[in-house]
């Protein structure tokens, strides 16, 4: 056991012999990691100072996850040296890593759904007295940590009952329960609301002040600007550059990351609103995540839905597709009323929904790209006749779509599990192109994918709209909704609180409509009472 790990982080930092160890908490040199068929990391150098936020930046598949997994001890590097706190570390395990103060928060959660928040926090390091669990002590410590983080989290709630955002908070709390010297955050804000995000940032500041080194993986430019001391850009498993965040521009970073010049992130879409593709009136879902919503989307335009996580915007389009039971309201698709909607009926009417959580709802990970892409089209004569698959025709059709989406490598027999986030999203989108689709429902289409893939997704949306399709874009990324949409609905607490178009579509107006929304929702409630 290493004795230093038991002391508080600050104390350790003060006693650390800065002269001999140098001001480096972590120093990786020449790290190489090969997986069957790929070199995930190729002689990468990386270092972290105490009290620094070091952002890892790169496209999916660039090697960021591999690097943080090596740091966290998930698997070892094939080559290179790993020096932590002045000493060479070999054969690190996740357990040891935690003991020496390395705490990772990964994107994939490691929580047990049927246990409570407290039980999860102490999983594997339960506090006991005389062999019995000291429930009270654990609950108290959990409450302290949660309070310190400023999270709105009930320690006794079961994980299963929590939203994704709350689960993320539990993960973060779990990482901070023990003494931390090196914190790894892998896109921690992907599912947090604005206020939760700002609390997380306050916390990061505090930890930084205490001398904790933080490795922060993110695609979000605003966060990077706000937090980063240094930025390391990876591309195709190679170190492109480590630079000070001072004076770095967004375009510069994107260029470093993609290796190509990118003038504009968002394409200019030529909206030509025509026929009404979707008309929703008085829609209320059975669980009241959506209440009394009126909504119109036209062919030839992108209709955006903005709002905070949990405001009901996602449930709105899920209900339209037939994934949420309704309690009131009508839905018309291209003039035809829809009753008892199921995904099957929606697909038949030319409606396609792309779920935000590709792992849970989108993809059959153990199956090849081809099968995933044709999954929603097995009823079409092009793919199957008399319930017998037409393999040649299927292969040809899917290959064509995959080429159009520029999936790399374009091998349609690869198992989806092995693909990066961007490629997985393309496989999902391929599904909308296998059949005649007139209304596309995008739910957070760029969550967890890199800028290069984002641009390609935007480009696809542009093509679809300009070819006359109707698109509904639900996104928590305000710039994304505002730049791509012709009109934007703002949702707040299950209601549509504003509809913005033209020059009104600004971040300020969206934020302002949340507050106005609060007031009008209260008024409505009082009127009803």
């Amino acid at each position, binding site marked *: *056991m290493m004795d230093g790990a038991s002391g508080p982080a600050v104390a350790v930092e003060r006693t650390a012999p800065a002269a001999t160890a140098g001001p480096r908490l972590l120093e990786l040199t020449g790290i190489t990691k090969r997986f069957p068929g790929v070199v995930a990391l190729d002689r990468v150098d990386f270092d972290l100072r105490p009290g620094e936020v070091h952002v890892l930046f790169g496209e999916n598949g660039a090697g960021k996850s591999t690097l943080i997994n090596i740091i966290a001890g998930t698997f070892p590097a094939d080559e290179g040296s790993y020096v932590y706190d*002045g*000493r060479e570390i070999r054969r690190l395990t996740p357990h040891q890593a935690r003991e020496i103060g390395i705490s990772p928060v990964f994107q994939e959660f490691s929580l047990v759904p049927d246990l409570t928040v407290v039980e999860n926090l102490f999983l594997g390091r339960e506090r006991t007295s005389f062999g019995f669990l000291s429930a009270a002590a654990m609950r108290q410590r959990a409450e302290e940590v949660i309070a310190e983080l400023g999270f709105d989290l009930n320690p006794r709630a079961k994980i299963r009952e929590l939203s994704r955002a709350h689960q993320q908070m539990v993960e973060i709390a779990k990482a901070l329960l023990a003494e931390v010297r090196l914190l790894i955050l892998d896109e921690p804000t992907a599912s947090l609301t604005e206020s939760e995000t700002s609390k997380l940032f306050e916390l990061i500041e505090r930890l930084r002040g205490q001398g904790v080194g933080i490795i922060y993986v993110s695609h979000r430019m605003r966060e990077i600007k706000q937090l980063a001391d240094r930025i390391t850009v990876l591309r195709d498993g190679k170190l492109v550059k480590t630079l000070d965040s001072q004076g770095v521009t967004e375009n510069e970073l994107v260029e470093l990351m993609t290796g190509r010049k990118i003038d504009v992130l968002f394409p200019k879409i030529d909206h030509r609103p025509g026929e009404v593709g979707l008309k929703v009136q008085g829609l209320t879902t059975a669980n009241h995540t959506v209440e009394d919503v009126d909504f119109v989307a036209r062919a030839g335009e992108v209709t955006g839905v903005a709002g905070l996580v949990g405001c009901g915007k996602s449930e709105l389009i899920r209900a339209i597709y037939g994934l949420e039971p309704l309690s009131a309201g009508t839905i018309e698709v291209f003039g035809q009323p829809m009753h008892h909607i199921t995904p099957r009926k929606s697909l038949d009417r030319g409606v396609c929904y792309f779920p935000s959580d590709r792992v849970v709802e989108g993809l059959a990970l153990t199956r090849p790209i081809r*099968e995933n892409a044709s999954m929603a089209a097995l009823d079409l004569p092009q793919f199957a006749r008399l319930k017998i*698959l037409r393999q040649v025709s299927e292969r040809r059709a899917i290959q064509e779509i995959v080429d159009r989406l520029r999936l790399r490598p374009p091998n349609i027999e690869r198992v989806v599990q092995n693909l990066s986030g961007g490629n997985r999203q393309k496989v999902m989108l391929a599904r909308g192109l296998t059949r005649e689709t007139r209304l596309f429902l995008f739910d957070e289409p760029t969550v967890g994918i890199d800028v290069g893939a984002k641009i390609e997704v935007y480009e696809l949306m542009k093509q679809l709209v300009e070819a006359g399709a109707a698109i509904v874009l639900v996104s928590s990324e305000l710039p994304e909704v505002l730049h791509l949409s012709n009109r934007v609905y703002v949702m707040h607490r299950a209601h549509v609180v504003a509809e913005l178009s033209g020059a009104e579509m600004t971040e300020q107006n969206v934020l302002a409509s949340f507050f106005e929304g609060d007031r009008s929702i209260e008024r409505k409630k009082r009127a009803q009472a």
Partner: protein
Amino acid sequence: MAEAKPVDRSDATASAEDATRRLQRRIRMTQALLPVVLLLMLLGFAAAEPRVLSFGNLANVLQQASYLFVFALAQMCVIVTRGFDLSLGTNVSAVSVLSALTLTGLVGAEGNGVAVAIFAGLLVGLGFGALVGVFNGLVVAWLRVNPFIATLGSLNICLGVASMASDGRPVFNVPDAFSQIFYSGTILGVEMPIIYAAVIGIAMALMFSRTVLGRSLFLIGSNPRAAEVAGLPTRRYLTAAYVLAGALAAFGSLMLTARTGSGEPNLGGGLRLVGESIAAAVIGGVSLRGGVGGVEAALIGALFITVLSNGMNLVRVDGYIQMIVLGAVLIGAIFLDRFRRT
């Protein structure tokens, strides 16, 4: 702490996790080498008892494996959807009794009407097996009952049916013609069980690779939510998987009934056949977590289990010890599956 020597700490805690990692790698390799392992096992038994490699015994192994192959295929239909079928064994017993009763009831005193009787017996057997499947499928897919509980229930139902219909006694006097068609006959010198297994194997391979049903079963097993969002009629296909499993089990039962020449109320032996069929499928590479598998997996798994029991018989391992070994193999198979993809 600062002066600690610059080497990795801890071999004690580290080595445990390292060992797991090494083990995972080794297991993944074993998977690819399964045919080799099978051969080594055969040679190992042969070293102790040369008769293992005699032509007669190898032919016997092949014939024995035919039955288990059919049952492993039945099991695979539902395992790829993340389910399994515990009722397979008692389903086999019930089908054996019911079809034997039909056969003996319809054959006249002078042995006339055999063709009609055999046809009716086949129909009753397959019909009952499919019915059990319909029941399992409805309970699992529509009532959303866990496959373990659902098929545990039908296990008991089938046991009741088998015991009630037979009064607990074997049904004798199954016509010879039946045994000839399903057991003792040969085509071009190949025994009937092997022929049926081959035909069923090919049919199932085509079903899994060439039909919408087969494709959908894999997709549903891989991610049931995604299959639903993609508009697949998941409940209908899930039911079909259980019906297929029930019907295949019934056909296997007819093959076994023809071999014993009587309807046996304990033919499926409670859970023994269930355990062997699941073990065979899983050892071959069908994942209990769904979405992964293939007919070749069921085949190699069935051969593996058959060679193992045949070898143990020939080297005269005690019957009870054999049961213990097979139980351990089932657990080992599931352990393998857990580590295979992580």
